[in-house]
Protein backbone atom coordinates (compact mmCIF):
# COMPACT_ATOMS: atom_id res chain seq x y z
CA UNK A 1 0.00 0.00 0.00
CA UNK A 2 1.31 3.47 -0.84
CA UNK A 3 1.78 5.87 2.04
CA UNK A 4 -0.74 8.63 2.71
CA UNK A 5 -1.70 11.24 5.25
CA UNK A 6 -4.78 10.45 7.31
CA UNK A 7 -6.82 13.52 8.23
CA UNK A 8 -9.71 13.44 10.64
CA UNK A 9 -12.30 15.89 9.39
CA UNK A 10 -14.18 17.92 12.00
CA UNK A 11 -17.15 19.10 9.99
CA UNK A 12 -18.41 18.79 6.44
CA UNK A 13 -16.81 21.98 5.09
CA UNK A 14 -13.44 21.08 6.59
CA UNK A 15 -13.69 17.62 5.03
CA UNK A 16 -14.38 19.09 1.58
CA UNK A 17 -11.51 21.59 1.88
CA UNK A 18 -9.14 18.77 2.83
CA UNK A 19 -10.31 16.62 -0.05
CA UNK A 20 -9.94 19.35 -2.66
CA UNK A 21 -6.37 20.31 -1.87
CA UNK A 22 -4.64 17.00 -2.70
CA UNK A 23 -5.37 13.72 -4.52
CA UNK A 24 -7.69 12.48 -1.83
CA UNK A 25 -10.25 9.91 -0.94
CA UNK A 26 -12.88 10.21 1.71
CA UNK A 27 -12.92 7.20 3.96
CA UNK A 28 -16.12 6.10 5.71
CA UNK A 29 -16.63 2.34 6.18
CA UNK A 30 -13.46 1.74 4.20
CA UNK A 31 -14.46 -1.81 3.26
CA UNK A 32 -13.94 -1.35 -0.49
CA UNK A 33 -11.36 1.45 -0.40
CA UNK A 34 -8.92 -0.53 1.75
CA UNK A 35 -9.17 -3.55 -0.53
CA UNK A 36 -8.38 -1.31 -3.51
CA UNK A 37 -5.51 0.42 -1.69
CA UNK A 38 -3.97 -2.91 -0.65
CA UNK A 39 -3.61 -3.88 -4.33
CA UNK A 40 -2.58 -0.36 -5.44
CA UNK A 41 -5.67 0.21 -7.57
CA UNK A 42 -6.44 3.24 -5.40
CA UNK A 43 -3.40 5.32 -4.39
CA UNK A 44 -4.64 8.48 -2.64
CA UNK A 45 -1.96 10.66 -1.05
CA UNK A 46 -4.51 11.81 1.49
CA UNK A 47 -7.35 10.03 3.27
CA UNK A 48 -10.01 12.27 4.75
CA UNK A 49 -11.73 10.42 7.58
CA UNK A 50 -15.38 11.48 7.66
CA UNK A 51 -16.51 8.99 10.32
CA UNK A 52 -17.12 11.69 12.91
CA UNK A 53 -19.44 13.77 10.70
CA UNK A 54 -23.06 13.84 11.86
CA UNK A 55 -24.44 11.95 8.84
CA UNK A 56 -25.77 8.73 10.36
CA UNK A 57 -29.47 9.54 10.58
CA UNK A 58 -32.29 7.23 9.49
CA UNK A 59 -35.66 8.99 9.50
CA UNK A 60 -38.95 9.01 7.63
CA UNK A 61 -41.52 11.78 7.15
CA UNK A 62 -44.05 12.90 4.52
CA UNK A 63 -41.25 13.63 2.05
CA UNK A 64 -39.93 10.10 2.33
CA UNK A 65 -37.06 8.17 3.80
CA UNK A 66 -33.97 10.17 4.71
CA UNK A 67 -30.75 8.21 4.97
CA UNK A 68 -27.55 9.83 6.16
CA UNK A 69 -24.52 9.13 4.01
CA UNK A 70 -22.81 7.40 6.93
CA UNK A 71 -25.76 5.29 8.10
CA UNK A 72 -24.46 1.72 8.10
CA UNK A 73 -25.85 -1.02 5.90
CA UNK A 74 -26.72 -3.01 9.04
CA UNK A 75 -28.62 -0.16 10.71
CA UNK A 76 -30.63 0.74 7.61
CA UNK A 77 -31.46 -2.91 6.92
CA UNK A 78 -32.76 -3.35 10.49
CA UNK A 79 -34.79 -0.12 10.59
CA UNK A 80 -38.50 -0.78 11.11
CA UNK A 81 -39.34 2.33 9.07
CA UNK A 82 -37.31 1.05 6.14
CA UNK A 83 -38.75 -2.45 6.40
CA UNK A 84 -42.35 -1.24 6.37
CA UNK A 85 -42.14 1.65 3.89
CA UNK A 86 -39.33 0.58 1.54
CA UNK A 87 -38.79 -3.18 2.08
CA UNK A 88 -36.72 -3.66 -1.09
CA UNK A 89 -34.02 -1.45 0.46
CA UNK A 90 -33.81 -3.61 3.58
CA UNK A 91 -33.81 -6.81 1.51
CA UNK A 92 -31.11 -5.55 -0.85
CA UNK A 93 -28.91 -4.67 2.12
CA UNK A 94 -29.46 -7.97 3.92
CA UNK A 95 -28.46 -9.80 0.74
CA UNK A 96 -25.26 -7.72 0.49
CA UNK A 97 -21.81 -8.72 1.76
CA UNK A 98 -21.54 -10.30 5.23
CA UNK A 99 -22.81 -9.24 8.68
CA UNK A 100 -19.34 -7.90 9.55
CA UNK A 101 -19.07 -5.83 6.37
CA UNK A 102 -22.64 -4.54 6.79
CA UNK A 103 -21.66 -3.22 10.24
CA UNK A 104 -18.94 -1.17 8.52
CA UNK A 105 -20.23 -0.23 5.06
CA UNK A 106 -22.23 2.98 4.60
CA UNK A 107 -24.96 4.25 2.29
CA UNK A 108 -22.73 6.59 0.29
CA UNK A 109 -19.87 4.12 0.21
CA UNK A 110 -22.12 1.44 -1.19
CA UNK A 111 -23.26 3.73 -4.01
CA UNK A 112 -19.57 4.22 -4.88
CA UNK A 113 -18.33 0.64 -4.57
CA UNK A 114 -16.05 -0.06 -7.54
CA UNK A 115 -16.61 -2.88 -9.99
CA UNK A 116 -15.56 -6.40 -9.06
CA UNK A 117 -14.24 -7.02 -12.61
CA UNK A 118 -11.08 -9.03 -11.90
CA UNK A 119 -9.07 -7.13 -14.52
CA UNK A 120 -9.87 -3.83 -12.82
CA UNK A 121 -8.63 -5.15 -9.48
CA UNK A 122 -5.37 -6.65 -10.81
CA UNK A 123 -2.70 -4.13 -11.77
CA UNK A 124 -0.97 -6.85 -13.81
CA UNK A 125 -3.61 -6.37 -16.51
CA UNK A 126 -4.65 -3.52 -18.75
CA UNK A 127 -7.96 -1.87 -17.82
CA UNK A 128 -9.53 1.23 -19.35
CA UNK A 129 -11.30 2.02 -16.10
CA UNK A 130 -8.12 1.85 -14.00
CA UNK A 131 -5.66 3.11 -16.60
CA UNK A 132 -7.54 5.02 -19.36
CA UNK A 133 -6.51 3.94 -22.84
CA UNK A 134 -4.74 0.75 -21.77
CA UNK A 135 -7.39 -1.58 -23.20
CA UNK A 136 -10.03 -4.01 -21.97
CA UNK A 137 -8.95 -7.65 -21.65
CA UNK A 138 -12.41 -8.59 -20.35
CA UNK A 139 -14.19 -8.14 -23.66
CA UNK A 140 -12.30 -11.08 -25.21
CA UNK A 141 -11.45 -12.66 -21.87
CA UNK A 142 -13.20 -13.76 -18.70
CA UNK A 143 -16.50 -11.91 -18.77
CA UNK A 144 -19.00 -14.33 -17.24
CA UNK A 145 -19.84 -11.88 -14.44
CA UNK A 146 -19.87 -8.76 -16.58
CA UNK A 147 -22.41 -6.53 -18.29
CA UNK A 148 -25.06 -7.36 -20.87
CA UNK A 149 -26.53 -3.83 -20.82
CA UNK A 150 -24.88 -0.42 -21.08
CA UNK A 151 -21.32 -1.52 -21.84
CA UNK A 152 -19.08 -0.05 -24.52
CA UNK A 153 -16.14 -1.12 -26.65
CA UNK A 154 -13.96 0.24 -23.84
CA UNK A 155 -15.54 -1.42 -20.80
CA UNK A 156 -18.19 -3.97 -19.84
CA UNK A 157 -17.75 -3.80 -16.07
CA UNK A 158 -20.80 -4.10 -13.83
CA UNK A 159 -21.71 -2.05 -10.79
CA UNK A 160 -21.54 -4.57 -7.94
CA UNK A 161 -23.83 -3.09 -5.28
CA UNK A 162 -27.38 -4.18 -4.40
CA UNK A 163 -28.62 -1.10 -2.52
CA UNK A 164 -28.55 1.28 -5.52
CA UNK A 165 -30.64 -1.16 -7.55
CA UNK A 166 -33.45 -0.85 -5.02
CA UNK A 167 -32.87 2.91 -4.78
CA UNK A 168 -33.06 3.24 -8.57
CA UNK A 169 -36.40 1.44 -8.72
CA UNK A 170 -37.76 3.59 -5.90
CA UNK A 171 -36.64 6.93 -7.38
CA UNK A 172 -34.04 7.97 -4.81
CA UNK A 173 -32.40 11.40 -4.79
CA UNK A 174 -28.73 11.92 -3.81
CA UNK A 175 -27.75 15.00 -1.75
CA UNK A 176 -24.26 16.28 -2.58
CA UNK A 177 -22.21 19.03 -0.91
CA UNK A 178 -19.29 20.96 -2.35
CA UNK A 179 -17.56 24.01 -0.89
CA UNK A 180 -18.93 26.84 -2.97
CA UNK A 181 -22.45 25.49 -3.31
CA UNK A 182 -25.17 24.55 -0.96
CA UNK A 183 -26.34 20.97 -1.07
CA UNK A 184 -27.47 19.99 -4.56
CA UNK A 185 -29.95 17.21 -5.26
CA UNK A 186 -29.43 14.73 -8.08
CA UNK A 187 -31.78 11.91 -9.03
CA UNK A 188 -29.95 8.60 -8.71
CA UNK A 189 -30.98 7.98 -12.32
CA UNK A 190 -28.72 10.94 -13.31
CA UNK A 191 -25.93 10.16 -10.84
CA UNK A 192 -24.06 7.41 -12.69
CA UNK A 193 -22.23 7.67 -16.04
CA UNK A 194 -22.16 4.89 -18.63
CA UNK A 195 -18.62 3.96 -19.70
CA UNK A 196 -18.65 5.06 -23.35
CA UNK A 197 -15.07 6.07 -24.18
CA UNK A 198 -14.37 7.18 -20.57
CA UNK A 199 -15.06 4.23 -18.26
CA UNK A 200 -12.94 5.80 -15.51
CA UNK A 201 -15.69 8.42 -15.08
CA UNK A 202 -18.37 6.58 -13.12
CA UNK A 203 -20.49 9.32 -11.56
CA UNK A 204 -21.10 13.04 -11.88
CA UNK A 205 -19.15 13.72 -8.65
CA UNK A 206 -16.43 16.36 -8.96
CA UNK A 207 -13.25 16.40 -6.84
CA UNK A 208 -14.18 17.25 -3.27
CA UNK A 209 -17.89 16.56 -3.70
CA UNK A 210 -19.28 14.80 -0.65
CA UNK A 211 -22.48 12.77 -0.61
CA UNK A 212 -24.27 13.77 2.59
CA UNK A 213 -27.44 11.75 2.27
CA UNK A 214 -30.26 10.21 0.26
CA UNK A 215 -34.00 10.70 0.12
CA UNK A 216 -36.35 8.02 -1.15
CA UNK A 217 -39.89 9.21 -1.87
CA UNK A 218 -42.78 7.35 -0.25
CA UNK A 219 -45.27 5.50 -2.43
CA UNK A 220 -47.74 2.66 -2.34
CA UNK A 221 -45.48 0.83 -4.78
CA UNK A 222 -42.46 1.27 -2.47
CA UNK A 223 -44.40 -0.32 0.38
CA UNK A 224 -44.92 -3.37 -1.86
CA UNK A 225 -41.37 -3.62 -3.14
CA UNK A 226 -39.08 -6.65 -3.11
CA UNK A 227 -35.49 -7.42 -4.02
CA UNK A 228 -34.42 -10.74 -5.54
CA UNK A 229 -30.76 -11.69 -5.90
CA UNK A 230 -29.38 -14.65 -7.85
CA UNK A 231 -25.78 -15.63 -7.13
CA UNK A 232 -23.37 -18.55 -7.40
CA UNK A 233 -23.65 -19.44 -3.71
CA UNK A 234 -26.37 -19.02 -1.11
CA UNK A 235 -24.84 -16.10 0.74
CA UNK A 236 -21.98 -13.56 0.69
CA UNK A 237 -21.60 -13.32 -3.08
CA UNK A 238 -22.11 -10.63 -5.70
CA UNK A 239 -25.17 -10.82 -7.91
CA UNK A 240 -25.15 -12.61 -11.23
CA UNK A 241 -28.52 -10.96 -11.71
CA UNK A 242 -30.74 -9.15 -9.25
CA UNK A 243 -34.06 -7.37 -9.57
CA UNK A 244 -35.85 -4.72 -7.53
CA UNK A 245 -39.58 -4.60 -8.26
CA UNK A 246 -42.20 -2.26 -6.83
CA UNK A 247 -45.87 -2.49 -7.75
CA UNK A 248 -49.09 -0.77 -6.83
CA UNK A 249 -52.16 -2.77 -7.81
CA UNK A 250 -55.59 -1.12 -7.42
CA UNK A 251 -58.69 -3.25 -7.88
CA UNK A 252 -56.77 -5.84 -9.82
CA UNK A 253 -55.08 -3.36 -12.18
CA UNK A 254 -51.40 -2.36 -12.08
CA UNK A 255 -51.37 1.35 -11.29
CA UNK A 256 -47.62 1.85 -10.73
CA UNK A 257 -44.66 -0.37 -11.61
CA UNK A 258 -40.89 0.05 -11.12
CA UNK A 259 -38.32 -2.52 -12.18
CA UNK A 260 -34.54 -2.26 -11.99
CA UNK A 261 -31.76 -4.82 -12.44
CA UNK A 262 -28.41 -5.34 -10.77
CA UNK A 263 -25.37 -7.37 -11.79
CA UNK A 264 -25.91 -6.77 -15.50
CA UNK A 265 -24.83 -3.19 -16.27
CA UNK A 266 -22.32 -0.48 -15.31
CA UNK A 267 -25.06 1.13 -13.21
CA UNK A 268 -28.37 0.00 -11.72
CA UNK A 269 -30.44 -0.72 -14.81
CA UNK A 270 -34.04 0.49 -14.92
CA UNK A 271 -36.40 -1.33 -17.34
CA UNK A 272 -38.89 1.25 -18.66
CA UNK A 273 -40.25 -1.12 -21.32
CA UNK A 274 -41.19 -3.69 -18.68
CA UNK A 275 -42.73 -0.99 -16.50
CA UNK A 276 -44.79 0.31 -19.45
CA UNK A 277 -45.97 -3.20 -20.24
CA UNK A 278 -47.22 -3.57 -16.66
CA UNK A 279 -48.99 -0.22 -16.13
CA UNK A 280 -52.72 -0.15 -16.64
CA UNK A 281 -52.98 -3.91 -17.21
CA UNK A 282 -54.87 -6.54 -15.26
CA UNK A 283 -52.57 -8.05 -12.63
CA UNK A 284 -52.32 -11.77 -13.33
CA UNK A 285 -49.81 -14.48 -14.17
CA UNK A 286 -50.13 -13.83 -17.91
CA UNK A 287 -49.13 -10.20 -17.39
CA UNK A 288 -46.13 -11.13 -15.27
CA UNK A 289 -44.95 -13.60 -17.92
CA UNK A 290 -45.47 -11.15 -20.76
CA UNK A 291 -43.72 -8.29 -18.95
CA UNK A 292 -40.80 -10.46 -17.80
CA UNK A 293 -40.26 -11.66 -21.38
CA UNK A 294 -39.32 -8.06 -22.25
CA UNK A 295 -36.73 -7.77 -19.45
CA UNK A 296 -33.69 -8.60 -21.60
CA UNK A 297 -34.64 -6.44 -24.61
CA UNK A 298 -31.62 -4.54 -25.85
CA UNK A 299 -29.14 -6.83 -24.10
CA UNK A 300 -25.75 -7.47 -25.71
CA UNK A 301 -24.11 -10.47 -24.08
CA UNK A 302 -20.35 -11.00 -24.14
CA UNK A 303 -18.68 -14.34 -24.96
CA UNK A 304 -19.34 -15.97 -21.57
CA UNK A 305 -22.48 -14.37 -20.17
CA UNK A 306 -25.36 -15.06 -22.58
CA UNK A 307 -26.88 -17.11 -19.73
CA UNK A 308 -27.79 -13.78 -18.12
CA UNK A 309 -30.43 -13.16 -20.81
CA UNK A 310 -32.61 -16.02 -19.59
CA UNK A 311 -31.65 -15.37 -15.99
CA UNK A 312 -32.78 -11.73 -16.22
CA UNK A 313 -36.20 -12.78 -17.52
CA UNK A 314 -36.63 -15.46 -14.86
CA UNK A 315 -35.42 -13.20 -12.04
CA UNK A 316 -37.88 -10.44 -13.01
CA UNK A 317 -40.69 -13.00 -13.26
CA UNK A 318 -39.85 -14.39 -9.83
CA UNK A 319 -39.74 -10.89 -8.34
CA UNK A 320 -43.11 -9.99 -9.90
CA UNK A 321 -44.65 -13.13 -8.43
CA UNK A 322 -43.23 -12.29 -5.01
CA UNK A 323 -44.54 -8.72 -5.09
CA UNK A 324 -47.96 -9.78 -6.36
CA UNK A 325 -48.34 -12.60 -3.82
Amino acid at each position, binding site marked *: *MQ*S*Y*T*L*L*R*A*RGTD*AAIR*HARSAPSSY*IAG*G*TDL*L*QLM*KVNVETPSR*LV*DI*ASLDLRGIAADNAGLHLGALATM*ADVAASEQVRSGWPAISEALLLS*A*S*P*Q*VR*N*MGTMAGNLLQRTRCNYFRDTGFACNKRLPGSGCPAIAGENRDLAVFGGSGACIATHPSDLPVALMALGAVVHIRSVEEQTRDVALADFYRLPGATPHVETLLQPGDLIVGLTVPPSNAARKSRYVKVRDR*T*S*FAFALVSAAVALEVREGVVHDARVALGGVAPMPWRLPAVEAALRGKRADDDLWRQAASLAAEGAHPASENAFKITLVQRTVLHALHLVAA
Partner: protein
Amino acid sequence: MPDSLMTRRTVLGTAAAAGLAAGSSAARAGNAPVPPSEATVGQTRMIVNGQPIALDLDPRTTLLDALRDHAGLTGTKKGCDMGACGACTVHLDGRRVVSCLVLAARCDGHAITTIEGLASGDTLHPMQAAFLEHDGFQCGYCTPGQIMSAVALVNEGHAGSDAEIREWMSGNICRCGAYPNIVEAVRTAAASEKG
Protein backbone atom coordinates in the same frame (compact mmCIF):
# COMPACT_ATOMS: atom_id res chain seq x y z
CA MET B 1 4.51 -10.60 -5.06
CA PRO B 2 7.94 -11.10 -3.43
CA ASP B 3 8.68 -7.36 -3.30
CA SER B 4 5.65 -6.44 -1.24
CA LEU B 5 6.16 -9.44 1.02
CA MET B 6 9.71 -8.33 1.66
CA THR B 7 8.50 -4.85 2.51
CA ARG B 8 5.88 -6.15 4.87
CA ARG B 9 8.33 -8.40 6.69
CA THR B 10 10.71 -5.47 7.07
CA VAL B 11 7.94 -3.34 8.51
CA LEU B 12 6.84 -6.09 10.88
CA GLY B 13 10.42 -6.66 12.05
CA THR B 14 10.86 -3.09 13.18
CA ALA B 15 7.33 -2.82 14.51
CA ALA B 16 7.63 -5.73 16.93
CA ALA B 17 9.99 -3.77 19.18
CA ALA B 18 7.77 -0.68 19.10
CA GLY B 19 4.80 -2.85 20.03
CA LEU B 20 6.54 -4.14 23.14
CA ALA B 21 7.47 -0.65 24.23
CA ALA B 22 3.94 0.61 23.65
CA GLY B 23 2.47 -2.27 25.61
CA SER B 24 4.57 -1.45 28.65
CA SER B 25 3.53 2.20 28.56
CA ALA B 26 -0.16 1.35 28.36
CA ALA B 27 -0.87 2.86 31.78
CA ARG B 28 -0.01 6.34 30.50
CA ALA B 29 -2.46 6.12 27.61
CA GLY B 30 -5.36 7.83 29.34
CA ASN B 31 -3.47 11.08 29.95
CA ALA B 32 -2.09 11.80 26.47
CA PRO B 33 -3.39 15.12 25.05
CA VAL B 34 -5.49 15.19 21.89
CA PRO B 35 -3.34 16.53 19.02
CA PRO B 36 -4.48 20.03 18.01
CA SER B 37 -4.13 19.33 14.28
CA GLU B 38 -6.61 17.22 12.34
CA ALA B 39 -3.78 15.09 11.01
CA THR B 40 -3.53 11.82 12.84
CA VAL B 41 -0.12 11.96 14.41
CA GLY B 42 1.26 10.34 17.52
CA GLN B 43 -0.15 7.42 19.36
CA THR B 44 -3.34 5.52 18.74
CA ARG B 45 -5.12 4.88 22.01
CA MET B 46 -7.63 2.06 22.24
CA ILE B 47 -9.30 0.01 24.92
CA VAL B 48 -8.53 -3.60 24.02
CA ASN B 49 -10.27 -6.27 26.10
CA GLY B 50 -10.87 -3.66 28.78
CA GLN B 51 -7.26 -2.50 28.95
CA PRO B 52 -6.14 0.90 27.61
CA ILE B 53 -3.21 0.60 25.21
CA ALA B 54 -1.32 3.16 23.14
CA LEU B 55 0.51 2.22 19.94
CA ASP B 56 2.78 4.13 17.58
CA LEU B 57 1.50 3.11 14.17
CA ASP B 58 2.03 3.83 10.50
CA PRO B 59 -1.32 5.22 9.23
CA ARG B 60 -1.51 2.19 6.90
CA THR B 61 -1.58 -0.32 9.75
CA THR B 62 -4.80 -2.28 9.91
CA LEU B 63 -6.46 -3.06 13.21
CA LEU B 64 -5.63 -6.72 12.51
CA ASP B 65 -1.90 -6.04 12.19
CA ALA B 66 -1.95 -3.66 15.16
CA LEU B 67 -3.49 -6.34 17.36
CA ARG B 68 -1.24 -9.16 16.18
CA ASP B 69 2.08 -7.45 15.58
CA HIS B 70 1.99 -4.45 17.90
CA ALA B 71 -0.24 -5.45 20.82
CA GLY B 72 0.91 -9.08 20.87
CA LEU B 73 -2.64 -10.43 20.61
CA THR B 74 -2.18 -13.18 18.03
CA GLY B 75 -5.50 -14.92 18.68
CA THR B 76 -7.07 -12.86 15.90
CA LYS B 77 -6.05 -14.55 12.63
CA LYS B 78 -5.12 -13.24 9.20
CA GLY B 79 -6.74 -15.26 6.43
CA CYS B 80 -7.47 -13.43 3.18
CA ASP B 81 -6.68 -9.89 4.44
CA MET B 82 -9.43 -8.68 2.05
CA GLY B 83 -12.60 -8.97 4.14
CA ALA B 84 -13.80 -12.21 2.60
CA CYS B 85 -12.95 -14.96 5.11
CA GLY B 86 -13.83 -13.58 8.55
CA ALA B 87 -10.80 -15.08 10.36
CA CYS B 88 -9.93 -11.59 11.67
CA THR B 89 -13.38 -10.85 13.14
CA VAL B 90 -13.31 -8.74 16.32
CA HIS B 91 -15.85 -6.53 18.07
CA LEU B 92 -15.41 -2.77 17.58
CA ASP B 93 -17.53 -0.87 20.09
CA GLY B 94 -19.57 -4.03 20.51
CA ARG B 95 -20.20 -4.73 16.82
CA ARG B 96 -18.47 -7.43 14.81
CA VAL B 97 -16.17 -6.20 12.05
CA VAL B 98 -13.40 -7.65 9.91
CA SER B 99 -10.27 -6.09 11.41
CA CYS B 100 -8.29 -6.46 8.16
CA LEU B 101 -10.44 -3.68 6.63
CA VAL B 102 -10.22 -1.32 9.62
CA LEU B 103 -7.40 1.21 9.86
CA ALA B 104 -6.03 1.05 13.39
CA ALA B 105 -5.45 4.82 13.54
CA ARG B 106 -9.20 5.31 13.05
CA CYS B 107 -9.85 3.26 16.22
CA ASP B 108 -8.40 5.98 18.45
CA GLY B 109 -10.71 6.26 21.45
CA HIS B 110 -12.65 3.11 20.59
CA ALA B 111 -13.10 -0.23 22.36
CA ILE B 112 -12.08 -3.54 20.83
CA THR B 113 -12.80 -7.05 22.03
CA THR B 114 -10.75 -9.95 20.66
CA ILE B 115 -10.91 -13.69 21.26
CA GLU B 116 -8.50 -13.16 24.17
CA GLY B 117 -11.10 -10.98 25.88
CA LEU B 118 -13.98 -13.47 26.02
CA ALA B 119 -13.02 -15.79 28.87
CA SER B 120 -13.17 -14.78 32.53
CA GLY B 121 -9.87 -16.01 33.90
CA ASP B 122 -9.84 -19.77 33.35
CA THR B 123 -13.58 -19.91 32.74
CA LEU B 124 -14.35 -20.06 29.02
CA HIS B 125 -17.08 -17.96 27.46
CA PRO B 126 -20.13 -20.20 26.85
CA MET B 127 -19.53 -19.94 23.09
CA GLN B 128 -15.92 -21.09 23.45
CA ALA B 129 -17.09 -24.01 25.62
CA ALA B 130 -19.77 -24.91 23.05
CA PHE B 131 -17.21 -24.98 20.21
CA LEU B 132 -15.11 -27.42 22.28
CA GLU B 133 -18.10 -29.52 23.28
CA HIS B 134 -19.44 -29.80 19.71
CA ASP B 135 -16.08 -30.10 17.97
CA GLY B 136 -16.77 -26.89 16.01
CA PHE B 137 -13.37 -26.89 14.31
CA GLN B 138 -10.68 -29.04 12.78
CA CYS B 139 -7.47 -27.08 12.13
CA GLY B 140 -8.70 -24.20 14.31
CA TYR B 141 -7.40 -21.33 12.21
CA CYS B 142 -10.81 -19.80 11.50
CA THR B 143 -12.09 -20.56 15.02
CA PRO B 144 -11.35 -17.24 16.78
CA GLY B 145 -13.20 -15.40 14.02
CA GLN B 146 -16.04 -17.93 14.05
CA ILE B 147 -16.45 -17.53 17.81
CA MET B 148 -16.32 -13.72 17.70
CA SER B 149 -18.98 -13.75 14.97
CA ALA B 150 -21.07 -16.31 16.86
CA VAL B 151 -21.04 -14.26 20.08
CA ALA B 152 -22.16 -11.20 18.11
CA LEU B 153 -24.82 -13.22 16.25
CA VAL B 154 -26.44 -14.29 19.53
CA ASN B 155 -26.34 -10.72 20.86
CA GLU B 156 -27.95 -9.51 17.62
CA GLY B 157 -30.78 -12.02 18.03
CA HIS B 158 -30.04 -14.03 14.89
CA ALA B 159 -29.93 -17.54 16.38
CA GLY B 160 -33.63 -18.25 15.76
CA SER B 161 -33.09 -21.30 13.53
CA ASP B 162 -30.29 -23.28 11.94
CA ALA B 163 -30.98 -21.53 8.64
CA GLU B 164 -30.74 -18.14 10.31
CA ILE B 165 -27.50 -19.12 12.06
CA ARG B 166 -25.99 -20.27 8.74
CA GLU B 167 -26.96 -17.04 6.98
CA TRP B 168 -25.62 -14.81 9.77
CA MET B 169 -22.40 -16.85 10.01
CA SER B 170 -21.83 -16.56 6.25
CA GLY B 171 -19.05 -14.00 6.74
CA ASN B 172 -16.87 -16.70 8.30
CA ILE B 173 -15.35 -19.33 6.04
CA CYS B 174 -14.13 -22.71 7.36
CA ARG B 175 -12.00 -24.48 4.79
CA CYS B 176 -11.98 -27.69 6.88
CA GLY B 177 -15.75 -27.72 6.48
CA ALA B 178 -16.71 -27.91 10.17
CA TYR B 179 -19.94 -26.05 9.43
CA PRO B 180 -22.46 -28.60 10.82
CA ASN B 181 -20.65 -28.67 14.17
CA ILE B 182 -20.28 -24.89 14.19
CA VAL B 183 -24.04 -24.51 13.73
CA GLU B 184 -24.60 -26.99 16.57
CA ALA B 185 -22.25 -25.09 18.84
CA VAL B 186 -23.90 -21.74 18.10
CA ARG B 187 -27.40 -23.16 18.54
CA THR B 188 -26.46 -24.78 21.87
CA ALA B 189 -24.68 -21.72 23.25
CA ALA B 190 -27.57 -19.46 22.21
CA ALA B 191 -30.10 -21.77 23.90
CA SER B 192 -28.06 -21.96 27.10
CA GLU B 193 -27.84 -18.17 27.28
CA LYS B 194 -31.62 -17.91 26.96
CA GLY B 195 -32.21 -20.63 29.56
